[in-house]
């Protein structure tokens, strides 16, 4: 285990102790105990930054986890992982600080839950970006979905919270599951789960038939997580989470996991036309859809949610366009495509800073006024001057105005899209001309919702009667984090090149490793003034048309477009869910009759049918008496007695005699075990029979007076056929297995146990040694099942359904 392993595991370890701190120090806000963790991790990771400008060497450490399945817990830190890890810990620290003031430490507020979930998320997210093994990535990936869902449902007494949590869980987890399928396909093609080894084989696998399927499945994981159209619908509903969570998970880090995945897989899949077209077009469409939808929102957090969707689409489309760089060998084309990757990395950082600060500001507004509705807010500029200043900076960056950092990445985005339209690969010239047009249109809407956000909240008339409480400036503790982020917005805007060689070049190197020879590195130089080029005119156009639309908003304020808020795509999810539930209920109605004999029959019929199918389809139906053992007359007698008792059961009419007969069968089985020299089994069987008798005595007390049911002959014949068939299948299977063993000279596993029970486990009783040692895990899980059954029995008896109530 290296220190880097502990970077990913530290939040989990800390999470174990947080509840103890919560209960021991009730006076102190639990957040103070959490804050050092991301802070220390951030400082530690910061030391990995190549501050001297030298190319960054990737660090790798491996610990075996399940070596037999090629699963190693390998940490791999290169520029891309470092960029994400710094975002996760850096924003994490700021968010924890902010949350200390946002969520008050009052009675009944389960702070320990909040911070345990938050740390769980932080660890999982670090695990995703630091792992090299695909299975480990998958495990952490699903953990982030899980933590996100728990955090959305933090205030679970609200119905909307539960709805949002379920929605995000279903969409992101099913995407993750598709991703797992993609990973397995990749394993099938390359024979390794290690991402770096897969990248080294990238050229060889592109001709495989499963290549495209693997690509699409991996993209399904990335698109659901990063809220790309049409999976974005979970993100607006995730805004029910406390605002620090929205700032952290649903704008700065978790939703960028999909971006990370796409960037990581660019060396594998990049250079394929499908990759280029799918990502670029989905990204651009998401950008447009998100920005148009954001304009319709009245809730400040709703605006930010759709804005996040749209910005994620922007980064995604840049990665799509940049993937073309893998394909180019010529130098000019290369730089045309790499500018897109560079813009993606830059915008990733920029978005985290300005969107993080904006979410925090919205949280402050909500906290201090009691509402986030722009129809009720207004005129807060003079009341909350600091909040207003931070918002102004964040919004200007989001709108893409100089001198803030958003302007730089926005310009580069336009440039990247203009380039992409002219690529002479992938038939980019067919529909490529649409790229800059969509990009520009979406930016106009982006500008429009930025103006709405700023002016509707902070200017206009202040009407205290519409607010829940009297508005005033937030406490300083709450303002620290957004001020730091806003400071970074300005800093990165004015001195963008401080990011260039420290983090952007190393991360580009990780996304496009094949473009560089040994010892080479990318040279990034970011500057504001590019001269009067197309991108600048596009920005000017955005400002002009965006402002024009805002001034004329009155014209469409009454339209159905503006009045509706909900994304129309939700219809698919909602009706899908209703359909799923009613479908499941209709299947249940057929199958769950409430009669044990039906359930038993279903199981037995299914078993017999599949078993006979396997026997017949594999030609395993061989019956061979040659190796049968001697049958002692005593054994014949015992079996005959058992047969008589069994056959008699259906013919007795009184319940007590049926129970006695079943008991007789059980005791004869115990006798059989004794004859066959299995004392442990005999003892167990005897005891089980004894306890069963007691249980039946108890149940008798509750049973109604016996009333013999009269069945139709058809029903009886059906039962008869099923029972005979089951008996026949079991007997034949036994015989066939017996014959198979002798035909193929297979040594039974019991030989191994006989030889090693005393040697390896120091026990003379083989049965017990198998139970506690050789197959200990089986036993453990069996008793776990026992525990669950006991709880189920208690619940069934104690919380009985009233008449007519369904379970």
């Amino acid at each position, binding site marked *: 285990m290296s220190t880097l392993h502990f970077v990913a595991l530290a939040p989990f370890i800390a999470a174990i102790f947080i509840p103890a701190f919560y209960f021991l120090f009730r006076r102190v806000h639990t957040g103070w105990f959490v804050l050092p963790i991301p802070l220390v991790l951030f400082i530690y990771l910061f030391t990995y930054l190549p501050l001297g400008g030298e190319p960054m060497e990737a660090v790798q450490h491996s610990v075996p986890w399940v070596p037999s399945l090629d699963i190693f817990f390998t940490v791999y830190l290169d520029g891309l992982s470092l960029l994400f890890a710094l975002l996760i810990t850096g924003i994490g620290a700021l968010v924890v600080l902010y949350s200390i003031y946002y969520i008050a430490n009052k009675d009944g507020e389960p702070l320990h839950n909040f911070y345990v979930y938050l740390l769980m998320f932080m660890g999982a997210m670090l695990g995703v970006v630091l792992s090299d093994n695909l299975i480990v990535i998958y495990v952490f990936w699903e953990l982030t979905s899980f933590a996100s869902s728990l955090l959305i449902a933090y205030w679970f007494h609200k119905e909307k919270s539960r709805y949002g949590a379920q929605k995000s869980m279903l969409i992101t987890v099913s995407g993750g599951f598709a991703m797992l399928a993609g990973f397995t396909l990749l394993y099938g093609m390359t024979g390794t789960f290690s991402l770096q080894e897969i990248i080294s084989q990238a050229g060889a696998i592109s001709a495989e038939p499963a290549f495209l399927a693997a690509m699409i499945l991996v993209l399904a994981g990335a698109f659901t997580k990063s809220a790309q159209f049409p999976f974005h619908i979970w993100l607006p509903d995730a805004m029910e989470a406390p605002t620090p969570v929205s700032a952290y998970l649903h704008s700065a880090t978790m939703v960028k996991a999909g971006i990370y995945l796409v960037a990581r897989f660019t060396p594998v899949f990049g250079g394929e036309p499908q990759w280029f077209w799918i990502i670029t077009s989905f990204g651009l469409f998401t950008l447009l859809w998100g920005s148009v939808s954001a304009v319709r929102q009245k809730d400040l957090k709703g605006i930010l949610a759709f804005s996040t969707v749209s910005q994620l689409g922007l980064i995604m489309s840049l990665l799509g366009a940049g993937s073309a760089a893998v394909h180019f060998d010529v130098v000019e084309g290369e730089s045309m495509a790499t500018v897109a990757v560079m813009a993606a990395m830059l915008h990733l950082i920029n978005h985290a800073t300005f969107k993080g600060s904006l979410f925090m500001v919205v949280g402050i507004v909500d906290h201090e006024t009691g509402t986030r509705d722009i129809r009720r807010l207004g005129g807060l500029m003079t009341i909350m001057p600091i909040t207003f200043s931070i918002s102004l900076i964040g919004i200007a960056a989001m709108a893409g105005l100089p001198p803030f950092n958003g302007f730089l990445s926005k310009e580069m985005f336009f440039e990247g899209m203009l380039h992409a339209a002219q690529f002479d690969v992938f038939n980019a010239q067919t529909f490529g001309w649409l790229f800059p047009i969509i990009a520009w249109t979406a930016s106009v809407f982006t500008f429009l919702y930025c103006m709405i956000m700023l002016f509707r909240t902070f200017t206009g008339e202040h009407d205290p009667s519409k607010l829940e409480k009297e508005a005033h400036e937030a406490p300083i503790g709450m303002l620290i984090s957004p001020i730091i982020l806003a400071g970074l917005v300005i800093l990165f805007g004015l001195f963008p090149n401080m990011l260039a060689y420290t983090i952007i070049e190393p991360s580009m190197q990780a996304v496009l490793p094949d473009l560089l020879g040994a010892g080479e590195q990318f040279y990034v130089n970011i500057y504001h003034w590019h001269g009067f080029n197309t991108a600048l005119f596009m920005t000017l156009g955005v400002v002009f048309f965006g402002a024009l639309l805002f001034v004329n908003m009155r014209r469409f304020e009454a339209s159905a477009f503006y009045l509706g808020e909900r994304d129309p795509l939700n219809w698919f999810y909602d009706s899908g869910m209703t359909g799923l539930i009613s479908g499941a209920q209709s299947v249940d109605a057929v199958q769950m009759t409430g009669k044990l004999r039906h359930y038993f029959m279903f199981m037995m019929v299914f078993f017999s049918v599949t078993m006979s199918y396997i026997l017949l389809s594999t030609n395993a139906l061989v019956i061979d008496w040659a190796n049968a053992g001697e049958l002692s007359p005593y054994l014949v007698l015992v079996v005959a007695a058992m047969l008589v008792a069994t056959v008699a059961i259906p013919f007795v009419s009184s319940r007590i005699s049926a129970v006695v007969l079943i008991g007789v069968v059980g005791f004869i089985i115990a006798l059989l075990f004794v004859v066959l020299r299995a004392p442990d089994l005999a003892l167990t069987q005897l005891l089980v029979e004894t306890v069963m008798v007691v*249980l039946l005595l108890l149940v008798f007390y509750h049973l109604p007076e016996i009333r013999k049911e009269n069945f139709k002959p058809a029903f009886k014949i059906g039962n008869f056929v099923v029972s005979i068939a089951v008996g026949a299948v079991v007997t034949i299977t036994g015989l066939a297995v017996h014959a198979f063993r002798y035909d193929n000279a297979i040594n039974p596993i019991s030989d191994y146990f006989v030889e090693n029970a005393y040697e390896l486990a120091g026990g003379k*009783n083989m049965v017990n040694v198998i139970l506690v040692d050789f197959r200990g895990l089986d036993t453990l899980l069996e008793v776990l099942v026992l525990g669950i*059954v006991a709880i189920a029995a208690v619940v069934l008896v104690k919380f009985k359904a009233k008449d007519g109530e369904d379970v």
Partner: protein
Amino acid sequence: MMKSRPIQFHVVTRITGFIILTFSIFLFFAGHNNPGGGFIGGLMTASALVLLYLSFDVQSIKKAIPFDYTQMIAVGLAISIITGIVGMFFGFPYLTQFFDYFQLPILGETELTTALPFDLGIYLVVVGFTMLTILTIAEDEA
């Protein structure tokens, strides 16, 4: 349950109940080298307890043996799971069991195994499960 219980049943149970209990504990320890073990010992303990419950009424036994069977299941599971983890600190896979022979006072040379605490967990779960299920059904009034 039955309102009046015959006095003979009472008297016999007092003696046999404890014989069965003792025997069940013997079975539990015998497990590694002779017939017995956690499952069997647990079932036998449970049957002895059930016998007690049958001959006396539930309330007085509850006072005499104040076990919470739900907790017994939880404790049993925890013991079994933790025994498995201990080996992991020494680099062995989960649930690796160890054994050795020791000279103990009175008992002489004795084999001690980590399988024993594991089996103790199984024993507790089996007793807890059986008793919890039977008592829940028995106490049900409806």
